[in-house]
């Protein structure tokens, strides 16, 4: 039996390959990025020619994966939790169309917002779409579950949601592999109307979706990951979901005989097992990573009857990631602590790499915009968002992918002038292009600065769809060539760049300034690779 030391993300990728994956689709986003990266660097995937290039955004990735499933083959799509919002349209409707080849949608949540804008819980989306959802508690289980996820997907002809959190995604452990199975052959859906969501068809499909959600609950493939272990204590029973189960075991031990424990790792959650537990105990404590999804379901509308402890009554903090010490506290166990952090220890926020082109872009922008005062710069999500921190303090918004351009439009509509958007090249192709089209059509008075580092820098330098195409895209969208500029963000061009930005900010119409300089990190890596291959 082969054993590998793998991150949770890598275990998922390896499992998908071993389960006969034919296509992997994704847009990079922490903590999900390593799934695609693993598949891209896999010798097996390349020998088999598994499709594995990055997509423009999570929506296009989701839909491409659905297309591969339509053609009868196994596909996986991965994203971070906020990426699922972008893919939501395709995701929710894929539950309506159903699938042909197995389709697994991995969403990596980020409780405590280690590198995210919110800590939404993807399990809500599972419930919303009414699809089976798997939530592994450790790396080995993640590996095993992927096989069952594909089989479940094919058995019920439904996409399956695979929810992980940062801690599992980015923690390494040894994983024992199974024998690999071959890829599926190309095959079209039996029902030619399966993927056609015309209202009359959709109505019929929705009925069957609702009924299969009930059926799926008792499927052995899902239910084997949920287990109830009774204990002698009749006071408190515990429900622990996904990775929260580990933190519980850390505190009470594997051989606990006292506390009744129900582990839940799949949804829709097992009502019968929950009854087993609640009928035995006076109180229940719910431990789950993320939002109180299970806890709220237990409480129901009237919230009476049994005492339920969890995130809603404050026994567990309402926000933030769990850890063994938080779980200990919620169990009333003593919590050890070492020394306090001495007061002289300072914060060390992340910052631009030395020599990063973004810093030159902001240095020029700050100069150019000085006469207008604060409050004119809408930013987007990427390394350049770090310009929100001192010494730059140069941006006034960062909301979601693409919002820089569209918020600038709205602010300009309101009369704000100048109204400047700063967006990266990868984010621009992810969600900025459509906003720019709006601006051109409405002739909005905005200045868009595309800080182009020829990569997706924030997540470690994945290929950007826009490299070498930005100018053509903008011109194609209809930006006037007179108000379209290419600049190079270097210190020696500082004065010249200020002039360009100043001039275009004054112009009442759409201007685009593309500031191009390759990310230092990817440039260094590229040069290293080139000299290694030379």
């Amino acid at each position, binding site marked *: 039996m082969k054993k590998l*030391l793998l991150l949770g993300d890598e275990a998922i990728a390896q499992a998908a390959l071993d389960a006969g994956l034919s296509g992997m689709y994704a847009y990079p986003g922490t903590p999900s990025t390593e799934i695609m990266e693993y598949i891209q660097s896999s010798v097996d995937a390349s020998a088999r020619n598994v499709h594995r290039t990055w997509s423009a955004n999570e929506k296009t990735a989701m839909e491409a994966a659905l297309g591969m499933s339509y053609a009868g083959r196994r596909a996986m799509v991965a994203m971070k939790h906020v990426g699922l919002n972008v893919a939501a349209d395709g995701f929710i409707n894929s539950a309506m169309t159903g699938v042909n080849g197995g389709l697994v949608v991995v969403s990596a949540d980020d409780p405590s917002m280690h590198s995210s804008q919110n800590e939404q819980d993807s399990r809500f989306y599972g419930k919303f779409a009414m699809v089976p959802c798997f939530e592994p508690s450790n790396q080995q289980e993640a590996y095993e579950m992927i096989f069952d996820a594909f089989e479940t997907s094919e058995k019920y002809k439904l996409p399956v949601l695979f929810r992980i959190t940062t801690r599992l995604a980015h*923690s*390494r452990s040894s994983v024992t592999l199974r024998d690999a199975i071959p890829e599926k052959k190309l095959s079209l859906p039996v029902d030619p109307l399966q993927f056609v969501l015309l209202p009359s068809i959709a109505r019929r499909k929705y009925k069957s979706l609702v009924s299969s959600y009930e059926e799926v609950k008792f499927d052995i493939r899902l239910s084997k990951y949920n287990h109830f272990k009774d204990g002698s204590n009749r006071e408190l029973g515990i429900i622990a979901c996904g990775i929260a189960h580990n*933190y519980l075991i850390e505190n009470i031990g594997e051989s606990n005989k006292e506390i009744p424990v129900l582990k839940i790792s799949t949804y829709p959650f097992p009502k019968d097992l929950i009854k087993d537990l609640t009928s035995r105990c006076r109180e229940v404590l719910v431990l789950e990573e993320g939002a109180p999804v299970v806890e709220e379901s237990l409480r129901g509308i009237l919230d009476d009857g049994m005492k339920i402890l969890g995130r809603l009554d404050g026994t567990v903090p309402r926000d933030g990631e769990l850890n063994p010490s938080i779980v200990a506290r919620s169990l009333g166990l003593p919590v050890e*602590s*070492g020394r306090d952090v001495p007061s*002289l220890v300072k914060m*060390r926020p992340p910052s631009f790499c030395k020599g990063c082109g973004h810093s030159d872009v902001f240095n020029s922008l700050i100069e150019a915009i000085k006469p207008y005062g604060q409050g004119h710069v809408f930013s987007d999500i990427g390394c350049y968002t770090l310009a929100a921190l001192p010494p730059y303090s140069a941006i006034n918004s960062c909301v979601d992918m693409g919002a820089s351009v569209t918020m600038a439009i709205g602010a300009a509509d309101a009369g704000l002038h100048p109204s400047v958007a700063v967006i990266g090249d990868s984010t621009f192709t992810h969600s900025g292009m459509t906003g720019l089209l709006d601006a051109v059509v409405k002739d909005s008075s905005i200045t868009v600065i595309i800080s182009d580092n020829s990569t997706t820098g924030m997540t*470690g330098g994945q290929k950007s769809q826009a490299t070498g195409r930005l100018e053509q895209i903008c011109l194609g969208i209809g930006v006037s060539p007179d108000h379209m500029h290419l600049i190079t963000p270097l210190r020696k061009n500082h004065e010249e760049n200020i002039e360009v930005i100043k001039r275009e900010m004054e112009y009442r119409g759409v201007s685009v300034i593309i500031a191009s300089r390759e990310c230092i990190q990817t440039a260094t890596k590229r040069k290293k690779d080139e000299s290694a291959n030379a």
Partner: protein
Amino acid sequence: MKSDIILSGVGGQGILSIAATIGLAAVDNNLYLKQAEVHGMSQRGGDVQSHLRLSDKPVASDLIPFGSADLILSVEPMESLRYLPWLSKTGWLVTNSNPFINIPDYPDVDEILNEIKAIKNHIILDADLIAKESGSARSGNIVILGAASAFIDMPFSSLEVAIRKLFGRKGQDIVDANLKALNAGRKLSDAYRK
């Protein structure tokens, strides 16, 4: 047997290669292992930590509970202090003395070293200098690993094996320099404790 280790430093200082070395050695010793890493935004010159747990029994949690780490292994002095709430009463703190200054309000280095000296079990060494003397200026992280190896419940030789495996692709010179760095760190820490 159980070793709960916090690795700390600043993004880009080589914490993940320390983790990878210990991880490989652990697998060689048939130990169970969990290692939680930091990826993404915080790596850009921000503080990073990794929890590494080794045991002869299965490890449940990916994170170490407060007050129970056996070792804080730090490639930067101020960063070693950031994780004191995790250190157990009998745990060791092993740190590089060289500050990594990328913030305007970095505290006085002597004050930091005094705080570290207030901890009963500590080892402070100038890893960068030792690394340079070993012929590989960039192996400061491995020097610290060598110094901390006395507190990790595994034979020293398995760390050497892991270094050979990990750096093998980069050529024999790099392997040798790292082995030298590892040994130099260990020797100094043995002397330090006498």
